[in-house]
């Protein structure tokens, strides 16, 4: 009898853990196993745009949002002692943002990288930002505007320094 109870307890625990892992996937620091475009370019150019336009505390800077973004003017990484509006975005936050964005659509991102970004237009990162896919935040970029070129250029492995900078400047 005890063994049945013990087994039930064990199964219960396993179920809780499995469930937690499944439901909190977005909250874990997942390892990037899929391919994703340049981390350096992302951190240098793309993240600053995403932080400003998408990473506000009421949007992707929300604690439990999908594609959660950290940044100086939004959510700060709990592992560090910064406040919203305080010190510039940290390297830990930049790499967390990279992981977040790469994992939004991991499988398609993988295919897109294999295809040199030719399928970038189908990625949720682009379709949600363009508002062609249902998006709570509405339409954030228009085809070929600075923000759109910033995102798509990165996905295609292009130099996006200027496009991303232009997109950020428009928000000031």
């Amino acid at each position, binding site marked *: 009898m005890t063994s049945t109870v013990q087994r039930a307890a064990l199964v219960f625990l396993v*179920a809780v853990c499995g469930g937690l892992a499944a439901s909190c996937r977005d*909250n874990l620091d997942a390892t990037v196993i899929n391919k994703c475009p340049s981390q350096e370019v992302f951190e240098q150019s793309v993240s600053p745009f995403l932080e400003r336009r998408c990473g*506000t505390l*009421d949007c992707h800077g929300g604690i439990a949002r*999908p594609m959660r973004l950290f940044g100086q003017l939004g959510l700060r990484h709990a592992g560090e002692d910064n*406040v919203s509006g305080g010190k510039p975005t940290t390297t830990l936050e930049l790499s967390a943002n990279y992981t977040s964005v790469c994992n939004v659509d991991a499988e398609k991102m993988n295919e897109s990288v294999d295809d040199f970004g030719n399928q970038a237009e189908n990625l949720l990162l682009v379709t949600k930002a363009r508002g062609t896919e249902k998006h709570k935040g509405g339409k954030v970029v228009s085809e070929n505007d600075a923000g759109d070129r910033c995102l798509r250029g990165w996905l295609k492995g292009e130099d996006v320094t200027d496009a991303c900078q232009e997109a950020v400047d428009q928000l000031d």
Partner: protein
Amino acid sequence: MPRVKSPARPLIALPIIFGLSISLGACRLDPTPQEVIDSLGPESGSPGDTHRPGQPCVVCHGSYGAVSPQMVFGGTAFTNDEDGNVIPAQGVEVIVFDSAGGSRKRCTNAAGNFYLEKEEWKDVAFPLTVKAGSRRMRSLIGRDGSCGSCHKIPDVDFPERDPETGAAYDSAGYVLVDPADQGACQ
């Protein structure tokens, strides 16, 4: 004790279902508006334009809360007195700009509160930017017209980090304006 095959197979399903039901509900994508409202606690005076300073007005005065008046934005401005205490900022001009080039102006009242009714800005286009007195907020308001959603007032449940502004890892702290900006807006 004779070894018998465990008759407990169907029973094993119970802890699975129970366990999963606890944990799968654990990580919601958004705190629901109801959770936010519940966390704000009961009314301390009578409801009116000076009530609940610092709280996220639109969570109640928006489509979810459905309380009248319905608001586009609403919040509370604070400032510091000579001793550095945080006090309500009165008569301060708050201007909100939208993405379509429009803007609306309000004055803070005795509690530092201000708000704009939905009817006064029907075609407002998010994201918004804000200026309170002489201070301009750099970041954007993506979609939440409650200043208090991001400028959470520090309280016991809230891990305050910056003792002066109340800012924390997920909050910009008080909406703090320059004391000299008070009284200019009537």
